[in-house]
């Protein structure tokens, strides 16, 4: 019997303050919310200025939610939110820290609505010789920046010139024109310590 009385005291203790929390929503601002802890893994967002279109997020995606569509001279990297599992693997894989998981968690949309996709569109560079797109402009620019930061000062100028000359050609055309474009690495041989 004493168990029942202690239980009675316990259930009566919160009679007027139920444990039910209100839904944390931006839709109904006048009601009191419950708290979302910081660091919640929600919908990913890609910073368009930082993304270089390297497709690391596409290869890292564990739920096959990210798709890469190359059309004409545009590359679109699209995350379909209905398949995203918010695992943050793309956040770890991105070399430019362009993709970050926000704290947004409300992802109920009709299937075709644009809100159900997180898309980034990038320009692809087309080859001057064959006309096929082969890499995004941003990726080539960023590779150049990274290269210039860490390269040995002895070869810096040569590499920089080469880069600007060769960047307009896709790898197949560079190979086809290697004599005319002077892509041979023997020009680095005479440098000491290289």
């Amino acid at each position: 019997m004493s168990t029942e009385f202690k239980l009675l005291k316990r259930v009566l203790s919160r009679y007027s303050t139920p444990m039910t929390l209100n839904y944390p929503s931006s839709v109904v601002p006048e009601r009191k919310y419950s708290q979302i802890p910081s660091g919640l893994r929600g919908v990913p967002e890609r910073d368009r200025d930082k993304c270089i279109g390297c497709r690391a997020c596409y290869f890292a995606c564990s739920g096959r939610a990210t798709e890469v569509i190359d059309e004409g001279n545009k590359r679109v990297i699209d995350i379909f939110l209905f398949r995203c599992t918010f695992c943050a693997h793309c956040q770890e894989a991105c070399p430019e820290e362009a993709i970050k998981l926000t704290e947004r968690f409300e992802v109920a949309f009709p299937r075709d609505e644009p809100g159900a996709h997180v898309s980034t569109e990038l320009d692809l560079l087309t080859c001057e010789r064959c006309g096929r797109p082969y890499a995004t402009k941003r990726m080539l620019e960023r590779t150049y920046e990274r290269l210039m930061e860490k390269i040995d000062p002895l070869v810096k100028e040569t590499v920089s010139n080469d880069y600007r000359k060769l960047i307009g050609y896709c790898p197949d055309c560079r190979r086809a024109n290697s004599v005319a474009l002077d892509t041979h690495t023997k020009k680095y041989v005479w440098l000491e310590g290289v």
Partner: protein
Amino acid sequence: MKFATDPKLLEFVKEICPDGLEYRQLHENRVAVRVRVEDLEGLADLFIKFGARLIHATAIDLEMKGFEILHIYDFSKVRERLVIILEAHTERPEVPSIGKVTWQARWAEREMKELLGIEFVGMPDERHQFLPYEWPEPVEGGAQKGSEFIPMNMPITEAYQTLIPIGPYHPGVIEGQTVYVKVEGEDVVAADIKTGFHHRGIMKLIERRGYGRGVFAAEKICGICSGAHGLAYVTCVENLYESEVPDRALYIRTLLAELNRMQSHLLWIGVVADVIGWKTGFMLTWGLRERVMDIIEAITGNRVNYGVWRVGGVSRDVPQELAERARRAVEGLKEECSELLALVADHPVVKSRLIGVGKLSYEQAFDGGAVGPVARGSNWKMDVRADNPPHAIYDPKLISWEVVTDNGCDSYARTIVRVKELLVSAGIVSQCLEHLSKTTGEIRAKPRSIPVGAEAVGLNEAPRGELAYYIRASDRDENLPQGIRIRTPSYRNNAVLPLMLVGCNLADVPVIMGSIDQCLACTDRVEVIGENYRRSMGWEELVAMSRRASRW
């Protein structure tokens, strides 16, 4: 921390098992022994008499080279942390069955027969494991020869016996399963369980996704024990190469595994209260569980699928002030839990519903291969964290904890075991949080490449029992495994269920089903019948298809 391997192990194994063709030492006290197919039965007999326990009996499809039958035995009671893997290579899919030797292999062999088409000669129970019993055509009587279970189309011989199907849709069971009970009045005379409604193909999914992305698929096998699957998977992959994981990562892993256990046991107590009709107990314990989920959400970013397990460490650190706040929350929670659960366990009506219900003696638990709190409630001191720990900190010198057993052998004993385990886990959590709030360090080590043909076994103590993963690395591709086999604890506990159901009252059936803490999402793991559902396939076609699909 480096996970050490005992160098003298091979001689010991050669003594116990002298007819092996080849002995290979794997990382962390696992030994693989290649044997002939005909020796498997004799060795099973020998090992069981020696005191070993069968973890899983499975097979890997080596495409052109045939099949490799694997029997994994746990020798941790004989020699510290030893696990022996018997491999028998065969080109013909006819293999002697060890179902007669040990009860524990029954479901495993039925599963291998269905998934890979291997014929086990002399199998005591030949029914389908995951497919419906009537597949491919209605079977006369339902049972095959020699089985002592009830067939599905049971003739009701006496007028006062009723066959009651509990499931697949039933308010008393949480997930889809069918338990057939034959009742006379209110007493259960015979019982049988049929699973297979949740099969999703996760073992195949992980084989396609590779080691790095596979951890996310492994996490999603089960919602309640998601953390346990993540930890077992990373333990298994780290055993494929010689791994060294930073200490802080190990503390975070222990922390998350024990928080997972706390919320799973609180959920379970609520479910048992609901099943005996006490909705108040359900609401009160789930209210406390919400506080645990808030702590988990603050640490990992998600309540259910933690997503921080990585091969070589964890991906998300716990800042020191968060660890301190969480530690204070857990201490308060531990007091409230112990008060509330003392009231729940002492309630006279609860006691009358749970005491003496669902008896499972020590011998039945040992032979049938029960694991986890079901085994510990029958006075069998078996805990993977003490015998064969995963890659996390469970050393009693670093974190003080204890294995809880109870000798009641009924549902009430299992309840007491889980309640006490919950409080022990709360203690482990506060100790880990205290350590994390006072130190800093790295949380991730770079994984090394996985050698050709490596294999590993990873064990973990999920809230429901012992969880075993077996991964065989491919000899062609560094990123994808050749095969992965998962044996979940509910697999074993559900196989023992019919033994517990006979002789009880009908009102006790959901209580017993609840007391073994069924997690059917863990029990079933696959089957897509075909993309075009209107076409029906025969048995031979299905077997051929599964053999083809396992090849590349």
